[in-house]
């Protein structure tokens, strides 16, 4: 295991961050309306750019940044090597509450923006107008959407919401954006806004984080009730009630391992033994 590297980039809290593909650059939001892009220089990080936003995701292959903000705006930033500048492109979100989360799809031709307006805006590029346009996933979300994760097939989207439920939607965009995906464990007919699964672990709590397993055949979510749950297509669900404080973020490292991090200052590894999690 490599030792932890600690870098102090600024003196305030960091509210969002995203790395580029080879981890040589990082975009961070220092708890204001800016995004600062740092590049790794030897042992430290140098500030190279400043953009104005609050939630960030970095598309590894196409090297684009998407940022969304509480002022209901989202921009896609393209790096232009000639001028050495990040150029924003407008995104038509049509939401009337703050954007809370943003995530590129695996193929990087779409991204999804979660919002407090009880909708998820699935955005794709409109060649004709040279802007990013969106379609809304609306039903049956009853409250603010707090987290998103894309299925590896680029079509299914998981969402965790403040109405205590984690859901799996189809975010299939017709007309050339998406090819018909092969059948998955979550279903084979997937028009836009198909609900492939709706999960609640019973005892409630906001869903802070959702994550598909690497194969996409399982969905993990963590709630504010200090429990993590692993749900499978068809409705099977297993909850692990913890003695610690709630977890805010989940990452699958393999089909049988999940790393969770939250209010407890330390990341924790969960493992699926044959009996369960």
């Amino acid at each position, binding site marked *: 295991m490599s030792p932890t590297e600690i870098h102090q980039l600024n003196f305030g809290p960091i509210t969002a961050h995203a790395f580029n593909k080879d981890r040589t650059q990082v975009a961070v939001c220092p708890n204001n309306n800016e995004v600062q892009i740092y590049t790794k220089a030897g042992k430290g990080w140098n500030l190279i750019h400043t953009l104005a936003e609050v939630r960030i995701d970095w598309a590894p292959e196409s090297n684009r940044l998407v940022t969304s903000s509480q002022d209901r705006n989202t921009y896609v930033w393209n790096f232009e090597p000639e001028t050495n500048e990040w150029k924003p492109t407008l995104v038509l979100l049509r939401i009337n509450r703050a954007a809370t989360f943003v995530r590129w799809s695996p193929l990087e031709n779409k991204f999804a923006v979660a919002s407090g307006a*009880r909708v998820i805006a699935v955005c794709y590029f409109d060649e004709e107008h040279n802007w990013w346009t969106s379609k809304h996933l609306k039903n049956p979300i*009853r*409250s603010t959407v707090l987290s998103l994760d894309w299925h590896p097939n680029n079509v299914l989207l998981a969402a965790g919401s403040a*109405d*205590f439920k984690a859901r799996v939607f189809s975010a299939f965009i017709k007309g050339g954006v998406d090819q018909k995906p092969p059948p998955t464990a979550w279903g084979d007919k997937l028009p836009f806004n198909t609900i492939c699964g709706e999960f*609640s672990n*019973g*005892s*409630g*709590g*906001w869903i802070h984080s959702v994550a598909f397993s690497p194969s996409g055949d399982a969905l993990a979510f963590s*709630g*504010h*009730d*200090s*429990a993590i749950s692993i749900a499978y297509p068809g409705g099977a669900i297993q909850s692990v*009630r*913890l*003695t*610690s*404080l*709630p977890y805010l973020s989940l990452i699958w490292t393999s089909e049988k391992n999940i790393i969770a991090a939250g209010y407890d200052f330390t990341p924790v590894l969960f493992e699926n033994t044959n009996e369960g999690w």
Partner: protein
Amino acid sequence: MSFRSIDIDSLDEDILGQDELFVFSNGVEITPESAANNVKTKGIEVRNHLTRGDTTNALITAIENPPYGLHTIDAKDQNTTIVMEVLSSIKATDIPSLVKLLSREQQDILMKYIYRGMSSPDKHNNSTVLLNWHEKLTEVAGVGCIVRVITDRKTV
């Protein structure tokens, strides 16, 4: 600060209601009457356990199947009284071993009742007992147990 007293929910047409966040154990809401009856039979059972000196089973019976629901207020009150009776009749030295016996779910429910008891000191004036239980239960079940009591809409 008069704006604080404005009921902003009444201005929202599409408001998220309590009932939508509530998950009933088998999908149907229990009527207040049958919930009250269940608690009554439970009370008798608990008393039988207590007279036989079987405090473990008295506690488990008292906290099992709480009358969850949006309208089961009477049943909840009665059940809380039963649990309080059991908690105060158990010796302080027995508490650590007892809480270890309980399952995760049972620990969560017990914590709910401890907080419920502390929230109405006029009815259940035994905060010394409750604080003692709270301390011992937290040692075993951790702060996660407390977080679940706060977030869970299935109140007791």
